[in-house]
């Protein structure tokens, strides 16, 4: 995951113009067609994720013994796999799994990371030292390796954390929110969330450190405000924008991470539709040895398109914040910088 967030940019400069909102948005869209396209793609994706049951033409796990390994056609636009399952429907349902894991991982990761970052940056001293050394340790792992390590420890059904969740929390084990094996998928998102939290904590701490130097914080303290009040009133609101920006950077990374570990056979289990796991195993083998390319092509294309959309949005945001450097300014390069997927 990104070690340090290149933080985008407020769009306020651009929005300053005092025209009606819609006309300002329209202008923005006209000037940044790529970003607009990216947003459209994400909207389609969200619709697919939320309303997969209505969008998908078939049951993603429905087996049709009369339509095994069919090439794309009118009745199956993306073809069918070795069990006659409709690839289009699986790809659409895959969006739900991807978005769910991405969103949960990002929420958990940024919340947990912000908490530690805030505590570490605000209180300093030994708390800061402990948290920062722990983060140093975690940052010493390449991201995917860290993730695989986390999952190899908590991914199995008899790991202590997983057992705890199953026995002491109401998180359902079976299908929930239209997601099969909910607990397993939830645990996966937590794993990805931990990896995200590490990066978030570092960045938030930095921001808190510089905020703390502000005169108005000094003033508040001098007036006898409690730590809690200072954090809630003065620090948190200022960090929020940063955390929101981080979340948008981490979302595609989390989606990629899910796909990558599922692709390695360590993530979303068979036969749950997932872009990553649909590209691996027997599907991959079918693609290579029997030229059944569609079973891997479409899930991968959906994944790439999603990441592309986020990258296009990111690029446009950068343009807006710094129009001098069209096409991307350094550091970040894009959401998957350093993610290695």
């Amino acid at each position, binding site marked *: 995951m990104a070690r340090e967030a290149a933080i985008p940019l407020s769009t306020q400069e651009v929005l300053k113009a005092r025209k009606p909102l819609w006309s300002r948005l329209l202008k923005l869209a006209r000037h940044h067609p790529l970003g607009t396209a990216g947003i459209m793609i994400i909207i389609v994706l969200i619709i697919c994720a939320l309303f997969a049951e209505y969008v998908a033409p078939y049951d993603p796990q429905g087996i049709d013994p009369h339509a095994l390994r069919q090439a794309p056609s009118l009745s199956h636009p993306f073809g069918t796999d070795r069990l006659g399952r409709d690839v289009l429907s699986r790809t659409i349902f895959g969006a739900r799994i991807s978005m769910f894991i991405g969103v949960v991982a990002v929420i958990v990761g940024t919340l947990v990371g912000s908490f530690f970052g805030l505590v570490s940056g605000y209180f300093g001293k030994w708390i800061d030292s402990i948290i920062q050394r722990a983060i140093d340790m975690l940052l010493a792992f*390449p991201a995917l390796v860290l993730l695989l390590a986390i999952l190899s420890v908590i991914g199995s059904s008899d790991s202590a954390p997983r057992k705890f969740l199953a026995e002491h929390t109401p998180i359902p084990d079976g299908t929930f929110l239209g997601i099969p094996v909910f607990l397993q998928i939830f645990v996966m998102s937590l794993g990805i969330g931990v990896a995200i939290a590490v990066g978030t904590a570092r960045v938030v701490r930095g921001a808190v450190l510089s905020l703390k130097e502000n005169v108005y914080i000094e003033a508040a303290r001098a007036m006898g405000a409690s730590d809690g009040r200072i954090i809630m009133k003065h620090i948190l609101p200022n960090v929020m924008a940063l955390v929101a920006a981080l979340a948008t950077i981490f979302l595609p990374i989390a989606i990629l991470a899910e796909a990558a570990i599922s692709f390695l056979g360590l993530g979303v289990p068979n036969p749950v539709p997932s872009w990553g796991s649909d590209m691996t195993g027997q599907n991959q083998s079918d693609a290579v040895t029997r030229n059944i390319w569609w079973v891997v092509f479409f899930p991968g294309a959906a994944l790439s398109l999603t990441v592309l959309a986020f*990258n296009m949005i990111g690029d446009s945001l950068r343009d807006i914040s710094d129009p001098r450097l069209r*096409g*991307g300014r350094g550091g970040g390069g894009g959401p998957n910088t350093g993610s290695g997927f």
Partner: protein
Amino acid sequence: MREYVVRRLLLIPLIIIGVSFLTFMTFRVIPGDTTVFICGLGCTDEVIHDLRAELGLDRPVFVQYWDWLKGVPQGDLGRSFQTKLPVTKELQTRFPVTLELLILAVIFSLVLGIPPGILSAVRPGTAVDFVVRVVSVFWLSIPSFYIAILMITFGASWFSWSPPNFATGEVASVFHNPLKNLEELVPPAIVLGVGIAAVIMRLTRSSMLEVMRNDYIRTAYSKGLKERAVVWRHALKNAMIPVATIIGLQVGGLIGGSVLVESVFGLNGMGNYLVVAIGTRDLQVVQALVLIFATAFVLINLIVDLAYAWLDPRIHYA
């Protein structure tokens, strides 16, 4: 500068010990009893008890950690639960594969990334620039394992090409059979390098743009120097400083990517081994590999930091 280097070097064993403690504890404490994975169906409480004693798992966990840690400097990373071979022996053939793959990938990413980046910066706003930008956004967005799958799938059906399949179970040695070795490693290295190339391309472009805007470049032009000389002699070196850093930052990503790419290409490297070990719950191996990857990553980051100072004399670490 020297003081800084010494301090960084001293910090490294500390980080590595911390990392090893973290990995050891996580893998020993959380996932439950590893012995059931070893003895299979024949296992009863009695067997498990004996096996735990045999493996020393019945001792206090700190004693176990100390025993394990003592072995690490001597190159003893424990034995695989699965094959019962020492992990270091398993790594003998795998380590060079991953190392070579990573080196080749970095070379490809530089070759594919820097020239287009420069071209695009020197001719901003032209068709070349546009193509470079679009291509880089695409490359950046397509996951390496997807590129690998497409390469193999369509390679087979369109060009009757298929990746070398390591039918002998190992990659040819770069010293004994360099041609075969390259034939086997170049395709995965290209796949791995493409994503990084996109990042480098974008960074080269923006960093060149910035540098070209400097007064000294304008001065160089006004002296009547040819563009080539300006670019090569004056602009490039400074523009490469951030590029050098980003390569260092990408190493973590490269290691992760190598796990995926080795898995698709069936390369018997460390990354693939990690995946296999996780799948078979050979936690002893996972622990060792994670430690190696983390250590390598820490060391490489140090080297990059130092290289950064060397490239840019203005930077002093205090």
